């Protein structure tokens, strides 16, 4: 599903070139649940952003579902992204001005899905996550765990093949974190959603079938 070859990423600060990623070669198959671990500044998030097409490497190639991502036109790439990738953040990143329902609905808007269809999909998702009663609340009215639940629901609303999670439990207490992790496992096993998560916690990393360790921009063998 994902093939990264010779990915380098650096930034220039004055005369020094700082490498964020060095020679990353990685293949991830459909249906995997991968955890990425490593100390702060090891390049975990950068790697996740590159896989999520939010960021581009300085060098290297990336094939996603057989498409050479960096040879695609902007529009096609954005289409590929919209249909296949969902993001979950540590800080939830819900839109404060929108209700739970509207937050979850938003990705569908950008895929030009008809209003009646949207209603059905969102209602389904609310039901599945057991948050029907909260649909008219604003993010500020929810607890952290509830917000992250909405964040996951929003990431899944367009039925992506790949779910990317950047420390999804970082802001949650352990019980809330466990619930989210259980949810991920369930998604991976029941729906076959490929999941890549960045995490600091050994315990959470264990939910994955494979753990990738990053140190100073390199994958540790």
């Amino acid at each position: 599903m994902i093939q990264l070859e010779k990915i380098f990423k650096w930034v220039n600060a004055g005369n020094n070139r700082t490498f964020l990623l060095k020679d990353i070669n990685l293949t991830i198959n459909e249906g995997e649940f991968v955890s990425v671990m490593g100390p702060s500044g090891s390049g975990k998030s950068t790697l996740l952003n590159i896989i999520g097409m939010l960021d581009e490497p300085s060098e290297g190639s990336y094939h996603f579902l057989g498409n050479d991502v960096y040879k695609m036109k902007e529009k096609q790439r954005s289409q590929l992204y919209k249909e296949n990738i969902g993001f979950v953040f540590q800080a939830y990143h819900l839109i404060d001005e929108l209700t739970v329902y509207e937050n979850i609905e938003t990705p569908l808007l950008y895929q030009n899905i008809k209003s009646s269809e949207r209603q059905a999909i969102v209602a389904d998702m609310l039901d599945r996550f057991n948050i029907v009663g909260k649909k008219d609340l604003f993010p500020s009215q929810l607890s952290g765990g509830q917000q992250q639940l909405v964040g996951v629901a929003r990431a899944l609303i367009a039925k992506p093949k790949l779910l990317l999670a950047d420390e999804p439990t970082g802001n949650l207490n352990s019980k809330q974190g466990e619930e989210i992790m259980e949810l991920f496992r369930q998604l991976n096993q029941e729906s076959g959603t490929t999941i890549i998560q960045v995490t600091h916690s050994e315990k959470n990393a264990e939910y994955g079938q494979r753990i990738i360790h990053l140190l100073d921009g390199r994958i540790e063998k």
Partner: protein
Amino acid sequence: MFTNYFKTAFRSLWKNRLFSGINIIGLTIGISCCLLIGLYIKHELSYDDFQEKGSRTVRVIMEYSFGENVTKGNFTSTKVAPAFKKNFPEVESAIRLYDARNVVKYNDRLFNENGFVYADSNFFNMFTFPLLSGDPRTALQGPDKIVLTRSSAKKYFGDENPIGKTLAVGSNARPFVVTGITADCPSNSQIKYNMLASFSSLGPAQEETYWNANYTTYLLLKNEASIASLQSKIPAFMKKEMGETSKTYILFHLEPMKSIHLYSPYSGFEPNSSITYIWIIIAAALLMLAIACFTYINLGTASSMERAREVGIRKVLGAAKNQLFYQYIGESFLLCAISLVLSILVLLITLPYFNQLADKQLSIISLLEPVPLALTLFVLGSVSFLAGSYPALVLAGFNPVKVLKGSFKNTRSGLFTRKSLIVFQFVISVFLIVCTFVIQNQLHYIQHSKLGYNREHTLIVPMDQKILDNIDAIKTGFKTNPGVLNISRAMNPPTKIVGGYNMRNATMPEDVQINVKANPVDEEFIKTTGLQLIAGTDFSRQDILDLGKEVQEENIYHYVINETAARQLGLTPQQAVGQKMFLGNHRPGLIKGVVKDFNFESLHTPIGGLVLFPEPRGATMLIKLSGQNMQQTIASLENKWKELIPHRPFDYSFLDEVYNKMYSSEIRLGKVMSLFSGIAILLACMGLFGLSAYAAQQRVKEIGIRKVLGASVINIIATLSKEFVILSGIAALIAFPAGWWIMHKWLEDFSYRTTISAWTFILAGALAVIITIITVSLRAVKAALANPVKSLRTE
């Protein structure tokens, strides 16, 4: 999708109420200015549009010369209309009009009527002034017929039917029969009348000649396109009419009727406007709108930090850049639409006052006509787009990775743009403040300068031949009132002496003449007006009686001249007394006295030579009052007037008011400039307030640290204001030369003027800086007083 955009837009406007409020108020003011000025301009551009034959109608302008100077004006002689109609096949019809003043009486109702217009009988055929009753073909046919507007009919006849009744016109109460009623002239008509009398009632105008240029002539052409060809035939035709050898020449020029109001240098029945003036106020309106837009742009980009996270999220959720762009444009559209609705409310409230002030009949309904409606929507669209696109571009361009990772601090990007826009807003404000100051200075100068005569407590009353014949008895009658000091009759009041004459001294040959202004006066003129004699003596009653001989050349005149006239004759004031001089060739006489120079014309013109001479003529009565119990004195004068002069109403004005009226366009300019600079400052301040509030908000941590390190409230305010004070200082420096240059040009029009002092600039600059400090402090104080523990903890 749109509902989602709309919801976010509305909720985020609500969340940032303060800034939304500033934006909405600013845009409302800007749009209101535009709408009001738009209505006014629409009215100005629509002049004479209602004239159905207007595009085929031309006004005739006369140009003539007797050798040296060429004179050109909107006056023509009686023969032009008939001669052109007879000789040029292009002309379908021609009409003469004569705009007069007359005393009009019906039973006990007696008024001095302006807009008493004599017109040829084809008036209603040429012009679109529909008759409400009466026959348009015959209403003005034959002498002594009169047509009234609806309001003048009401004024004299109340609810009676005026048709067939007679009005007494003029000092000899000549009867005119009312033959028709028209609607009142539309306010966008260049031809204005209250009463129309048949042209054939004008005795002296029945002779057809080229030499009595007192009338306005309009021609109705068969074909609009024939103006040029007709124009080219006129020189040859006039040469034939004048005789080939004649040294004098007369020429006529044709002006399309619809272009008179905005393009002609020669007034119509009311003063013209000009297309330059229209452009100036369009520019003013656009500037106001620009200032409001800049505030929006500034607040939009300054607050973009707050929206950055939302942008990042939306991008991660799959939003394309253009979708985000349109979302934020939509937000600015919503804001503008709210402002537009509010502007219309503002307009509904202010329009009646504006109409009263400008003496217009503007109606908000006319905004619903296709062109204004389209323009309004265009303005709405372009403002939303212009004001919204820059912030929208900034927002849509954010990189989601940076924004969402929290490593995103307010970048320096857009800072320069914001500063430039603030400077621009303040340049406009300071420029307008400077202009306002200089104009007010000049107005103060005009109203308080010593003109060389006393214009206080003086009544000025128009008079006619009948009063003149009886002037001695009338003067005696009025003087029984203890409040009356002096009474004088003269041709012109001292505010504006217009009579053009020639003078020479005894040693100059007869064909060398000096152009002067001269005014027939009586022996009380100098006392009444308070002119200062610097040599010789005042007129005596005998001087007037001396002029009683039948043959004019046998009379010996006595003259009082001004210093300039003495200098022009080559004499000092002392030498001049007793010297022989001539006024024209028929008035030999002696110089009796010399008065100090005084401004007998507008301050736009330098003082020229002036001769006062005691000829028994006059059109003006000046009554000098003591200044005590004015109202009582005037009331008793009015009673006396009714007794002595029953054929005229007591129609008085005050000399100082008459004087001020000469500068009404300057006074109006002063008011308009004060208003515009006030609005500009208000708008600029609101923008500044918003920006400084954001700055305070963003620097909350810095303020906290500074306070912990021991900074006082004043220190903090200074820190926060410094940047803005520097910006307003820069703006002032840019605005000064522009303001100085424009005002220097404006003042050059006045021969007597105030100087532009450095104080004007110091004051304007200080005002800008002080306003800046106050505005910024409003928020800075709050930021400085905040508890640093709180702000540091939240970070």
